[in-house]
């Protein structure tokens, strides 16, 4: 066998694929063939590298050269220069935003320096459609170890000792969950992987499934062995076609090798996995709703108890874990509970994957040890706020979470500190906002989402959230009263206390946290009819300064609703009743005569 001297890794995640990374891979292969190098250089489509801001990413190994924003037509130059002549293609290298220097080696990029990749260990490194590459990186060794060396109780013990907590939102200790499920006896039990990932903007679970599907299969088998389940189900949203495809390929290959099926590793343990597709409802990520949806019933939650561990899928004991929770399992078995629990904080062990989004320089997928501060994430990994603007808030926990401010930047993040600060870990969405974000509008955005996604089964969530939304809308229209602010608070508390499931119990969090942290901004909207971020259109007024206006008529000619009147060569005026605040006039005025008041 001739060994490939160089490996070219091309990101094949959903994001980079949308920017034609499969075409890039094909062009690289074609150009290699032209040069007769197809047996010396291997091109591999991998999962996500995380640095989505600058995708598509192409990485050359073993020298770790990291090319960003690559286009299909760059393939020729990469082969001719880098591969044939050994010269890096400087224009495609990542440029450090501060030093303006090109950084060739990804190990030296600020984005990666503070990261610790455990759940994402194989993403962007192996070919997810080739089980052998997973095996080359210790894949299925943890399962072998469990089946041949450990009893189910010992496996549960390791997970308990590791301190791993669920990554799907609530942070329940995984080992304890497994223990409860293992103690409920039944002729059939189920282990379920929750790959619903309904938080807006979140793509952690999708990236793991696209980049390292075998790690989830192996972990589910380990979990199945631990609790005594022979059947695994992955509940995955149908909008994730690439993740579904990679999972299907991985399951097929695992079956061919006998890593799924009967008598795995010569033991008496049988295990297999099936996929179940979700239609993309947020509430179906809630475990009881998820189970009902898998049973072909309406995706509505039911009261707990009974917990799924007692009576879940088809009324059998069922253990539900999140994708990222599973991704941590094999490596904990291999490296041990002590290794895992040495990472992180007192009560939150290991790492957490976040989807970093919003007004930040390095948008992407990151994995950091628990205990990293928001400041480190935003300024070191995230490269700071876009366009040199000022940081205002960071939203974590999605629709169930809250907005944190400047004063929280040095909080060492883990489940408990985020909760104490009025937000939550959630599944790992992190949206960074600058001064151009209006916090009332942000709260309204999340409530709009919850109203849309509420299943309607319980009254507090169905009607309460709608009322919250209406009050917020009134405030953004400049029609709110101070009494409305009190009502927001009170109603929020009632919904939290009385809603049936986690959706309603957490949906007022975006409202409460913005009221607590941005009280002045709410008051400004109510009392001064002012939106300091310039977002609430109803509170804005476009005015023409008659001393600066030369009467060129550009604004009047371009106004889509003919709201601007005036004689040529004399000052113009905006009819406020007709104005729709689209901003066209400001754009067209060459004299800076128009401003927002």
């Amino acid at each position, binding site marked *: *066998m001739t*060994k*490939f*001297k*160089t*490996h070219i*890794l091309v990101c094949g995640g959903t994001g980079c694929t949308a920017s034609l990374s499969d075409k890039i891979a094909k062009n690289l292969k074609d150009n290699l063939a032209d040069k007769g190098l197809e047996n010396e250089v291997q091109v591999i489509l991998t999962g996500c590298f995380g640095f989505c801001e600058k995708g598509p990413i192409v990485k050359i*190994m*073993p*020298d*770790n050269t990291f090319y960003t924003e690559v286009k299909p037509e760059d393939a020729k130059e990469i082969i001719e220069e880098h591969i*044939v*002549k*050994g*010269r*890096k293609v400087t224009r495609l290298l990542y440029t450090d935003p501060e030093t303006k220097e090109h950084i060739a080696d990804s*190990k030296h990029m600020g984005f990666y320096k503070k990261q610790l990749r455990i759940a994402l260990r194989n993403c962007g*490194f*192996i070919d997810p459609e080739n089980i*052998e*590459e997973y*095996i*080359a*990186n*210790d*894949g*299925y*060794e943890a399962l*072998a*170890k469990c089946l*041949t060396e450990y009893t189910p109780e010992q496996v549960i013990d390791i997970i308990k000792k590791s301190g791993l907590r669920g990554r799907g939102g609530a942070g329940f200790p995984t080992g304890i969950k497994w223990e409860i499920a293992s103690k409920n006896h039944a002729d059939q039990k189920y282990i379920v992987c929750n790959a619903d990932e309904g938080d807006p903007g979140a793509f952690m679970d999708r990236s793991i499934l696209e980049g390292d599907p075998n790690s989830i299969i192996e972990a589910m088998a380990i979990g199945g062995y631990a609790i005594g389940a022979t059947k695994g189900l992955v509940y995955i949203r149908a909008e994730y076609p690439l993740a579904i495809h990679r999972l299907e390929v991985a399951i097929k290959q695992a079956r*061919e*090798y*006998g*890593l799924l099926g009967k*008598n795995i*590793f*010569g033991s008496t343990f049988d295990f297999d996995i099936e996929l179940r597709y979700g239609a993309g409802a947020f509430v179906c990520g809630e475990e009881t709703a998820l189970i009902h949806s898998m049973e072909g019933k309406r995706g509505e939650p039911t009261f707990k108890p009974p917990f799924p561990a007692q009576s879940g899928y088809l009324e059998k004991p069922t253990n539900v874990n999140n994708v990222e929770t599973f991704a941590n399992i094999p490596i904990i078995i291999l490296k041990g509970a002590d290794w895992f629990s040495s990472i992180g904080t007192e009560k939150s062990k290991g790492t957490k994957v976040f989807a970093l989004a919003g007004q930040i320089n390095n948008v992407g997928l990151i994995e950091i040890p628990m205990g990293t501060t928001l400041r480190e994430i935003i300024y070191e990994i995230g490269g700071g706020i876009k366009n040199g603007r000022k940081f205002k808030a960071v939203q974590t926990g999605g629709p169930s979470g809250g907005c944190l401010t400047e004063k929280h930047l040095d909080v060492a993040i883990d489940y408990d500190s985020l909760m104490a600060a009025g937000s939550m870990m959630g599944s790992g969405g992190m949206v960074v906002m600058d001064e151009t974000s209006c916090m009332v509008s942000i709260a309204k955005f999340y409530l709009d989402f919850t109203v849309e996604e509420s299943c309607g089964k319980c009254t507090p969530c169905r009607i309460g959230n709608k009322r919250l939304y209406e009050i917020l809308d009134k405030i953004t229209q400049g029609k709110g009263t101070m009494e409305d602010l009190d009502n927001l608070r009170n109603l929020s508390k009632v919904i939290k206390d009385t809603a049936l499931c986690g959706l309603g119990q957490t949906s007022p969090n975006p409202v409460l946290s913005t009221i607590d942290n941005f009280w002045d901004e709410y008051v400004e909207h109510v009392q001064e009819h002012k939106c300091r971020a310039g977002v609430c259109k109803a509170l804005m007024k476009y005015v023409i300064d008659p001393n600066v206006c030369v009467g060129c008529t550009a604004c009047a000619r371009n106004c889509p609703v003919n709201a601007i009147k005036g004689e040529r060569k004399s000052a113009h005026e905006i009819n406020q009743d007709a104005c729709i605040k689209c901003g066209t006039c400001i754009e067209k005025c060459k004299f800076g005569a128009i401003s927002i008041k």
Partner: protein
Amino acid sequence: MAQIKTLADLQALKKVAHEKMDTRIKGNTSGLPQIRIAMATVGIAAGAKEIFDYFLEQADAEGLNVVVTQTGVIKDGNCQPVVVELALTEGECQVFENVDKKKADEILDMLKH
């Protein structure tokens, strides 16, 4: 496809798969020594490619944990290739000129202790 029925089966498959990925895995490991061969036009004309292959084969045969990569011009205005750079640790590196197989063996020997 042969079924995997024991840990030994898995490890046998792992060994083969690991070898195929060797280049990538070494590149991903921090702190390995590096051998960089200048492979610009002049270097290639002077036989840098053969030396590059030789380094790879020998490192493999001897089971040396080293990253072998190609690079551009190491020494400006050098018309007497083949030029090779050896970095035992990051930062510190030695440059060798006119490297042939014999000299390559000497460089590889330096990695053995």
